[in-house]
């Protein structure tokens, strides 16, 4: 087996909001083709950790390295904003609430990053956007505004928007939690396909099925620390900690 590159590496991430320490030292490594599911009950810090990876939250301490490049922090802020932005552009992100730009059509949403950030030509960006929208099954919704789409469709546009940046890894922040139950399937299906393609993904989720069947590694957070970590096969059949045992018992 060839050596896989380390795409995202987090070392000893701490994050406090005021006096409350939400993350108490989390380290994680995502290599090419890894699909890492991050589980944990609400308040465990899993979303905060994910947001630290692309600096939507600045870690209080600890380092984030993306493909060998470290984002330097000084006085609680990224030292070089431009450098941080270029690194962000290499990590896609999909949000719980989709966060599509509501004043732009699906197509414009997907074209926006390539044109504005990667400085591609309109024609180039358009071709690519059409291809990715087709990829998520929305070729007939290209010229609609987010308000005209269902939640599941919006989330698929959001995934296409992330893909259009051709990111080295994609971060998913509870991508199905805001969806009606009958719409969860279509989004999970797209995510499974992406995993099968070999994309590097870090997924904060409540979908046990996804974590168990699709991910290559499961990380269980509890009170700001990694309580348990391993392959889904081992962890789900033979949980090592009481916390995780209780967690899956409740979830299933």
């Amino acid at each position, binding site marked *: 087996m060839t050596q896989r590159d380390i795409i995202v590496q987090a070392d000893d991430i701490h994050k406090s909001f005021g006096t409350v320490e939400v993350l108490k030292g989390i380290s994680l490594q995502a290599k090419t083709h890894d699909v890492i599911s991050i589980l944990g009950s609400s308040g465990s810090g899993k979303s905060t950790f994910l947001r630290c990876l692309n600096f939507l939250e600045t870690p209080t301490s600890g380092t984030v390295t993306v493909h060998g490049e470290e984002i330097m922090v000084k006085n609680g802020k990224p030292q070089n904003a431009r450098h941080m932005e270029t690194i962000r552009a290499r990590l896609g992100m999909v949000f719980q609430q989709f966060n599509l730009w509501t004043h732009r059509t699906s197509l414009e949403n997907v074209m926006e990053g390539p044109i504005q950030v990667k400085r591609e030509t309109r024609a180039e960006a358009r071709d690519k956007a059409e291809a990715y929208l087709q990829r998520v099954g929305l070729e007939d919704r290209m010229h609609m*505004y987010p308000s005209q789409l269902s939640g599941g469709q919006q989330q698929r546009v959001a995934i296409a928007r992330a893909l259009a940046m051709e990111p080295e890894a994609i971060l998913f922040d509870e991508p199905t939690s805001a969806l009606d139950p009958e719409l969860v399937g279509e989004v999970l299906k797209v995510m499974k396909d992406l995993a099968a393609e070999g994309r590097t993904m870090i997924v904060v989720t409540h979908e046990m099925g996804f974590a168990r069947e699709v991910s290559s590694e499961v990380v269980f957070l509890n009170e700001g620390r990694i309580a348990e970590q391993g392959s889904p096969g081992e962890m789900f059949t033979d949980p090592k900690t009481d916390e995780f045992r209780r967690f899956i018992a409740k979830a299933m």
Partner: protein
Amino acid sequence: MNPFEILAQYWPRLMDGTLMTIKLTLLGAFIAALVSPGLALIRVHALPIAQAPLRLYISFVRGSPILAQLFLIFYGSGQFRPVLQEWGLWSFFRDPFNCALLAFALNSTAYQTEILRGGIIGVPRGEIEAARAIGMSRQKVLRRVVFPHAYRMSWPALGNEVILLMKASALASVVTVFDLMGRSRQIFSRTFDFSVYLWAALIYLCITAIFVLLWRQAERRLSRHITARDKSHGTVPPLKETRP
């Protein structure tokens, strides 16, 4: 004289005044529109201490009559003529049109700043995060996400502000600017026929009506993405199987 004779005789002057009113209003509103986005951002993001001077200026403008502000600039500048001459600014303040324009621009800036501030606060946070997450710079986030939303939400209030400014611009006639009001007063002082004010009122009404129409067109463009939903009701083919 009957009202139509007044109009027949004096319409060139009334038109002249109308153009001056439009010029004064649009220029004032435009200068304010250039300055207010930056000030609105300061109002939203800067530390309270840093924005103290701005807040003082805004409460002064909002808390005093625009006529008082106009007099302050027009008569005040006369008071400081030697200083202004020394700085080479006297030629600007000597012209009553410039004084009126400055007063209106300063006035409208304060209002437009506060209106836009409301719009900026209302921009959905998630959309800003999505823009940051995709790697946009701060400026790009402002240009591509924050201001498009902020202007759409502020648009009706901004239109209102321009209309109010247009009517307030009649005050310029007090400091010898011959705008529509100034011309009407001039005509009245010759004819003692009050119907000239009726014509003036009608012209103001026409300007406002045209402005409202244009503004509404622009508003429609800005809110396409919201009206799209209602319009598409029934016209979009029933959901096809779109699953991948």
